[in-house]
């Protein structure tokens, strides 16, 4: 609809079903919440209060019928509230959820396939695949034996928390597992949409140029880890790894960087170690969280 940004709403489909109708129930154990035809969950005022809706109604002392109403609400408050729900649901089950973001073709799916092959003998892995169209990537994942669910965002250029919440209820990832979310190939929009993941992993391939972190700073600022992929191609391209790292750290001094090749497996030991550390963290908080949410049937 919008020919400037290409974003559309209410067109997303999860494996053939429109998100607004097919997957009304939200996440498992949470039957409340209705999805509007626009594809957003409808909440009542009590729920709205949870995401910082202040007491609106401040009135300018004017005499005209027009008056100012103080709102002070984040534009993405609804997405953020749903993301928090997802995060709680995942935490209560000790599931490590990672949101993988990159430009189109940086190697996310190839990387996921190799990662699943390395992990699945010791920990269950499930995958949510986001693409504008086709279920090719989900099929590539399923070939590994791991369960995968494809979300097609239509004209939308990013996954949002509602889509992922619905995907969780379909996929029902097991306790103590890894959930890998492959976002739509796009270095801009996914930076703004929290899905409830534990960390964003940005994949930068060496064929894209070492100045990407400065061109798309928000994504590198939002990520916890940067994987520099396709390092097997370094002899053939003009890509300075040190420069790319330096640029990325300018944007985000706390960013961890691991160079890898999804094709040869180079660097995978370090990447899998990073996953293990975060999986341990996700699992460790389980007893606490499980107690917290036991009463809610989560």
């Amino acid at each position, binding site marked *: *609809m*919008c020919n*400037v*940004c*290409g*974003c*559309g*709403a209410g067109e997303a489909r999860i494996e053939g079903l429109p998100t607004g109708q097919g997957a009304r129930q939200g996440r498992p154990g949470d039957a409340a919440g209705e999805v509007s035809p*626009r594809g*957003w969950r409808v909440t009542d*005022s009590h729920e*709205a209060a949870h995401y910082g809706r202040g007491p*609106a*109604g401040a009135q300018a002392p004017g005499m*005209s*019928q*027009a*008056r*100012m*109403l*103080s*709102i*002070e*609400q*984040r*534009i*993405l*408050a*609804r*997405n953020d509230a749903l993301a928090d729900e997802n995060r709680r649901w995942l935490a209560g089950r000790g599931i490590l959820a990672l949101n993988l973001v990159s430009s189109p073709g940086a190697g996310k799916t190839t990387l996921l396939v190799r990662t699943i092959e390395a992990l699945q003998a010791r920990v269950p892995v499930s995958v949510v695949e986001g693409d504008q169209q086709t279920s090719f990537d989900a099929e590539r994942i399923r070939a590994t034996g791991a369960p995968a669910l494809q979300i097609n965002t239509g004209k*939308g*250029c*990013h996954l*949002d928390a509602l889509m992922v919440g619905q995907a969780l209820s379909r996929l029902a990832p097991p306790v103590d597992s890894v959930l890998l979310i492959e976002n739509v190939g796009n270095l*801009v*929009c996914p*930076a*703004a*949409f929290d899905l409830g993941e534990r960390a964003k992993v940005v994949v930068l391939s060496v064929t894209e140029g070492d100045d990407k*972190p*400065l061109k798309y*700073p*928000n994504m*590198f*600022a939002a990520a916890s880890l940067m994987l520099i992929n396709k390092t097997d191609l370094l002899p053939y391209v003009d890509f300075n790894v040190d420069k790319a790292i330096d*640029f990325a*750290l*300018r*944007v*985000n*001094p*706390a960013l961890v960087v691991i160079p890898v090749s999804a094709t040869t497996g180079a660097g995978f030991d370090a990447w899998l170690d990073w996953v293990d550390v975060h999986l341990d963290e996700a699992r460790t908080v389980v007893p606490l969280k499980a107690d917290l949410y036991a009463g809610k049937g989560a």
Partner: protein
Amino acid sequence: MHEMSLAEGIRQIVEETARHQGFGRVRTVVLEIGQLAVVEPDSLRFCFDAVMKGGPADGAVLQIDRVPGTGWCAQCAAQVEIAELYDPCPRCGGYRVQVTGGTEMRVKELEIE
């Protein structure tokens, strides 16, 4: 760009507020958009006009207040202003600046009638 989704979010907030406060029309929507946020104001304006059609803010003026970017420089142990996420500290020239403000995207006020 995801300005369409942002415009949808604004419409949601406007409609919900209209329901609870019982007003009919919105004259002005005032946003607070940080200088470092992932938003292109021009494309947001374009999407805003399209998305508000048929709702309480149909034809409303969109006012965008920019909030400056700020960060904490570890070297200087001070709060500094930055125009871009990758800008160095204006005091010491170092890059160890953690962003502390200027990424917000909020609906601040509605002028209603």
